[in-house]
């Protein structure tokens, strides 16, 4: 697969049902090749995103987390992604305090027709996570 190095890492994707999940479908139907590290979880809207989902995923062993939704102004539920944008920006700025590289988390806006763009986003993000390597290790921590 393009640009990938080393064994497959675990990247979790939270995709909104209407735009990004549709966009991923479009990419699939168009047989656009992407790295296979990404595992997708479908949510109704990025407004459903709780920053804690991202943190729990990172703590439990995810090497990267991607959240993708409709473009601002195009949210299927009108406002969901406006709230998400604020929450996820706050989260992104918070991660470095813990010692987690904020490049392990991205939030993007991909619409249902943007199959090509979806391919680019996934490839680019997977490459970005591979450059950082496997996640340092809250997941591997054992009992005191």
């Amino acid at each position, binding site marked *: 697969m393009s640009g990938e190095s080393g064994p497959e890492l675990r990247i979790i994707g939270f995709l909104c049902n209407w735009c990004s999940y549709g966009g991923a479908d479009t990419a699939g139907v168009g047989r656009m090749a992407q790295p296979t590290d990404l595992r997708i979880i479908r949510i109704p809207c990025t407004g459903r995103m*709780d*920053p*804690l989902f991202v*943190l*729990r995923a990172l*703590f*439990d062993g995810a090497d990267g987390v991607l959240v993708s939704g409709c473009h*601002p*102004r195009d949210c299927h539920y009108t*406002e969901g992604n*406006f*709230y998400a*944008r*604020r*929450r996820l*920006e*706050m*989260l992104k*700025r*918070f991660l*470095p*305090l*813990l*010692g*987690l*590289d904020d490049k392990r988390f*991205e*939030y*993007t*806006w991909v619409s249902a027709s943007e199959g090509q763009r979806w391919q680019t*986003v996934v490839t*680019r993000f997977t490459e970005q996570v591979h450059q950082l390597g496997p996640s*340092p*290790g*809250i*997941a591997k*921590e*054992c*009992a*005191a």
Partner: protein
Amino acid sequence: MTTLDELKRTMKEKLPELDVIIAWGQGFDPLHATPLFIRDADQVEQAVWNPLCVHNLATYLPWLKDKRVGVLVKGCDSRSVVQLLQEGLIDRDRLTVFGLPCSGVLDLSKVAERMPDDLGLVREVDLQQDQVEITTAKRAHTLEKRDLLPTKCLVCQYPNPVIADHVFGEERHPADPEQGRYFDLEEMEERSLQERMEYWKQELDRCIRCYACRNACPLCVCQDHCIAETRDPNWLRQEDTVREKLMFQMIHAMHLAGRCTECGECERACPMGIPVFTFKRQLNRDLQELFGYQAGTDPTAVPPLMTFRVDEENIKDRGW
């Protein structure tokens, strides 16, 4: 008449109209104050007001929502009162606020650093303007008050209550820390990412999941139904590992984003001395930078995470 005398006089005056006044009284030794619930006039004499009055008494307000309550607040505590009003968790009509401009409290962990062997042997404490004299069974210590101030006091922007029905004592000036208002976060930023992760792993290792941090927080009103402890949904495992304990701190910090008024009680309450306040400070700095917002200053304000702008001034497109 001293500030304390004036305060006591007013409390006695207002007590007949109230079910209880929450003040501070003398604790188990000269170095500790404790919350005092005044129901009868003869209890008023027990009230104290000094830099040992560290507790944020606003914590008790949501639980006494249906009562007519008087509460004593420092500047930081008054912000918690405003935040509780903002969220509709307390009733302004049943609340009487006794405001006390504050020049800083003592961080007992800093006292402990300077007298590690005899902290439990205190016999006498003399609180002066700039110094604190502590006499223990072993020796006398003279400490500089400015060395004993907690982070929140060193960066305090609200020494005077932002809400009060009665005010006692002279107005104070906000702190002007030479290291900057976020020096604690900047110190963390001098460490590498790996060092930060190791730091938190080491700190959270001794956490005993007592939830004192959560219960001491005035804004944590769902503590009896906290998702940290529910089994459905099951957010946290019961296993005693750093992963679960740090995840709890994430839950706590995220649920306080936009609400935390930086009273610092979470860190003060921790029996194991874990610096949990840092997480909330980070979120508050981001709130300030992104939205120019501080919690607990305006009862009519809408918290930024409860609203949005179609075009965000400070959130730039990431070019993906």
